């Protein structure tokens, strides 16, 4: 779920190097948990399924986690509190597979090798989830992830002498909620109120519609050292940033139609530092992200009533953020330096400010055995970087558009087609990060995928990312003859949970 946020945001993401010995220790702990889970009869992430006794299909549209059904949204908004508290409130998941970038030979950006083990098996991440129902009104989605090779990417290794292929364990998505639900007289105007507060670590992780970037298609991406599938392409702050900030917010859902939420995000320091557990400023691969003051996030949405099997949502969201740059910089071709997202934060030079505004929507048709879901998201971002900390221009803009439609039959066979487009002002930074000779961030990709769920908790997916534009061009975007399609990436991967 972009639970894989690690891989997408390795630059800002914090984590701790794990020694070989410790790996075994973690493995042993994991085995113990697996054993306990295996011997637990019929109790259900699988944690939530054990809590409600229902199959994944009840909360996930067509069983395609992480997409939620109306009931799944209710379950999350009421604080994961429905059901029976579990004796062992734990679930685990694993993602891994074979990724293959079309042309790995000449290193499309930064003149480095793109993928370390192209075309061979690679583990992506293993997570432990805890929480679920804790008290009557209090519950949690708390994900802790070990991620293979995710705090370093090959090109950065080559040019900055960072540690290659470093694995990390740290806090992934965190959403701890207190929630209450009032049911009133059906004749009155306001007859149903859900409200709650959330302590979380990722703007958008609280969202219940899958048009939001935190839980949107394609959900997962291969490890970053596998190429620029996602991590090379520029993303807006909101869409690209993963877990690692300390956020607290409140929300209200009226008549199951009108949703409003406001959160404030600060650096995860002091008592809140566990929300960025794993970040470590002494590890240049994975420093903690520091933001200035409180950074507001606002989300509004209108969800339709269910009309038979149909329901839809239209929404808007926004965030202002001021981010301290990391200390490690590189030289752009035009002679300016830019921040590469590695190294301890530099708190003395001011911040780079991002202003994100977006709209999104979702449509679902859910009638067993058929499930059709469609989402779109549009974000406009203004970037102000007066001290040229991260960019070469004092102001930039970046716009992104995403749309996706999918169909699942009998929660077993699924297919989806996604479209992503990023466009914005030229900046020399993109020449170094993406290899775009023109400095253009403009990138367009089609992302089809098909999957098979042999069991409700085992999904085998084949996805393909086809670039029709990369760094502003279809042909020869890097000036050395590399075409956008050279970055096309296929990924056959297994996603399982228990």
């Amino acid at each position: 779920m972009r639970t894989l946020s690690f891989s997408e945001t390795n630059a800002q993401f914090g984590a701790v190097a794990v020694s070989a010995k410790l790996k075994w220790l973690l493995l042993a702990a994991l085995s113990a948990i697996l054993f306990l889970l295996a011997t637990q009869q019929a109790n259900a992430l699988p944690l939530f399924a054990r809590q409600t006794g229902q199959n994944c299909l009840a909360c996930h549209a067509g069983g395609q986690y992480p997409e939620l059904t109306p009931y799944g949204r209710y379950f999350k908004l009421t604080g994961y509190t429905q059901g029976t508290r579990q004796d062992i409130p734990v679930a685990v998941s694993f993602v891994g597979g074979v990724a293959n970038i079309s042309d790995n030979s000449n290193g499309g950006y930064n003149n480095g090798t793109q993928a370390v083990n192209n075309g061979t098996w690679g583990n992506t991440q293993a997570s432990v989830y805890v929480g679920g129902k804790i008290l009557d009104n209090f519950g949690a989605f708390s994900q802790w992830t070990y991620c293979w090779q995710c705090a370093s990417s090959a090109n950065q290794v080559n040019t900055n002498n960072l540690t290659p292929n470093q694995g990390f364990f740290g806090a992934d998505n965190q959403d701890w909620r207190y929630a209450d639900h009032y049911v009133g007289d059906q004749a009155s105007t306001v007859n149903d109120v859900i409200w709650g507060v959330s302590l979380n670590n990722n703007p958008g992780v609280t969202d219940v519609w899958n048009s939001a970037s935190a839980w949107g298609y394609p959900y997962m991406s291969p490890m970053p050292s596998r190429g620029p599938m996602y991590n090379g392409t520029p993303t807006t702050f909101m869409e690209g940033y993963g877990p690692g900030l300390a956020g607290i917010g409140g929300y209200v859902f009226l008549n199951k139609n009108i949703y409003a939420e406001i959160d404030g995000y600060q650096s995860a320091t002091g008592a809140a530092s566990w929300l960025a557990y794993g970040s470590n400023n002494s590890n240049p691969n994975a420093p903690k992200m520091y933001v200035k003051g409180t950074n507001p996030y606002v989300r509004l949405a209108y969800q339709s009533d269910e009309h038979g099997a149909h329901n839809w949502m239209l929404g808007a969201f926004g965030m202002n953020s001021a981010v301290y740059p990391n200390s490690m910089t590189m030289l752009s071709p035009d002679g300016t330096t830019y921040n590469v997202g590695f190294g301890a934060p530099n708190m003395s030079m001011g911040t780079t400010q991002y202003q994100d505004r977006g709209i999104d929507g979702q449509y679902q048709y859910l009638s067993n055995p058929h499930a059709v879901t469609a989402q779109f998201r549009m974000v406009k971002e203004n970037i102000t970087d007066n001290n040229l900390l991260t960019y070469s221009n004092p102001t930039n803009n970046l716009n992104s558009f995403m749309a996706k439609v999918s169909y699942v039959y009998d929660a077993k066979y699924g297919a989806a087609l996604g479209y992503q487009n990023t466009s914005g002002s030229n900046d020399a930074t993109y020449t170094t990060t993406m290899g775009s000779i023109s400095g253009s961030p403009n990138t367009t990709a089609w992302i089809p995928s098909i999957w098979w769920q042999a069991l409700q908790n085992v999904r085998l997916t084949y996805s393909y990312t086809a670039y029709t534009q990369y760094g502003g061009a279809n042909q020869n975007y890097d000036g050395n003859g590399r075409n956008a399609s050279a970055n096309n990436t296929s990924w056959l991967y297994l996603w399982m949970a228990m």
Partner: protein
Amino acid sequence: MKAKNMKNTLRKLSILAAVTVPLVFSGCTWFNDKPPVSTLENPTRSRTLGDYEVNGKVLAQQVCATCHGITGQSDSPMYPKLAGQQKDYIVVQLKDLRDQSRSDKYAIVYMWGMARNLTDKQIDELADYFSAQTPMYGEANHSTSAQAQLKRGEDIFNNGVPTAGVVACNGCHGPEGAGMAEIPRIAGQHSDYIVKQLNAFQHPDDKALMEMGGNTWAPKMYDLHRNLERGAAMNAMVANMSQEDVEAVALYLNTMNR
């Protein structure tokens, strides 16, 4: 060297702590969640299943209503309408779901978990709540292409299909399809739901390899059927009904009481 070792140990300890602290935090209350020791802080708006203290009406509004509708008039065709359903029918069905003797596919997927920890008292209160609502109403179906199908459905409802051994529905479910005692109200019900149930009655020998709830990695061959004893009459009566007739009568039922 010594300092380095110390640092490593500390780091290991902190990682271990990061794993175990949340585990303990979320699990520390696990010893006292078993009835009859109630741990409810908010019994009037609780979504807790498996605690005798929560009233059935609270469960109806906080849990059941999410899919079945606050008045039992569910919008989604995946979930049956319960509004004005016969109380005795709701009671026996919830008990069948609780003891897993009703095991049509979506009963396993959605309802086994919901019903597994209900007490008899809660079932009674739930049934009171939904049976007292304004009876479920159907949807208008004016499409001209459906008129022949509706006519066929009406004919089956009133006269059965003598050649296939199908007895008229109104014989047991009543002329208005309102049901009685353990015989369910069917007028105004979702046609998708009716089709799925008639098919379950038709094929009591169906099986499927599936997982149930969070019992992952333990796929089992489940027998897919309604309660065999309680459903015996229906099993026999609809055994030879054609799929066209099943769909016709389901469509007709959905247009009743509107």
